[in-house]
């Protein structure tokens, strides 16, 4: 006659089974956390590539570019002689001031926005932007200019604050590039 399991055997088997299940649970929770981290990074990478490509194309092809600030929805350009660094970048794709593309940081809600001359065209490109003046005009050595020299490069330096989420601490990220206007007036 086959004998059954003893109580110690059952207890040990149950303990081992519990440890295996606990291990699988821990690994799955770890995987969930890693998945969230990877997804966030992948989204940021994809977004920044698309947005910067568009910004790059628009600066390359624009007829003229002007740096300035936006206050109460109105753009105010920097004058010749002022330090060419501001919260907004105004691009004119063609001659004349009818059509424009405006990139600006709205300090009230820390967003990077893009607007055109079309009504209700303002869109939020990024949140948690901590840089108040991300746009500047530089010479070839990286010095910020104080004039409207047309042979200049538009420098974009954006810093983002990543709030704490799940079990990750808060963090900062930086994206920086320079773009030279190709069509000079």
């Amino acid at each position, binding site marked *: 006659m086959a004998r059954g399991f003893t109580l110690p055997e059952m207890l040990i088997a149950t303990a081992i089974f519990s440890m295996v299940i606990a291990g*699988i649970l821990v*690994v799955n929770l770890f995987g969930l956390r*890693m998945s969230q981290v990877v997804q966030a990074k992948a989204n940021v990478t994809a977004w*920044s590539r698309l947005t910067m490509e568009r910004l790059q194309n628009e600066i390359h092809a624009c007829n003229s570019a002007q740096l300035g600030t936006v206050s109460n929805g109105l753009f105010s350009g920097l004058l010749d002689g002022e330090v060419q660094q501001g919260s907004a970048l105004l691009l004119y794709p063609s001659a004349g001031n009818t059509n424009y593309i405006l990139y600006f940081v709205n300090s009230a809600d820390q967003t990077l926005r893009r607007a055109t001359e079309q009504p209700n065209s303002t869109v939020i490109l990024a949140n948690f932007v901590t840089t108040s003046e991300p746009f500047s005009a530089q010479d070839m*050595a990286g010095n910020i200019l104080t004039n409207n020299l047309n042979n200049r*490069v538009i420098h974009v330096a954006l810093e983002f604050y990543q709030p704490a989420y799940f079990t990750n601490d*808060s963090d900062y990220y*930086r994206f920086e590039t*320079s773009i*030279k206007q190709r069509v000079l007036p």
Partner: protein
Amino acid sequence: MTLTEVVVALAIVGLILAGTVIGYINCANASVKAELEQAGNAKAMERLEATHCAIWAPFRATPVDQLVASNFPDLEVSLDQPGTNLTGTVATIKTTIASISTNPPMRSVHIDCIWQFQGQEWMTNSVETILVSQQ
């Protein structure tokens, strides 16, 4: 069930769990690497765009040539913004300017952004363009 069977079964389970964890970690590392590669490419492009600012006008009454290597020395930059739990990755940007042709005047500009991933693997993001002199 013998002790040997139990030990072998536990070892198999351990291997499976370890493989799963390593897979997740590799996935996260690949994401960080992709992020740094993009930053490296952006930095290389940044320098390339800066070379477009250099005036190279050999046909002017007073010729100007700013498109020379001495105007673009090696530069150390950070590929990310170190925060509460990240260590910054430092990259070196090297610029090589070479003459392709004198008539018409053309030069190639080659930018290398060299950095090390997690202190092990050396990575290089390269961009290149050809510039023609200004009139």
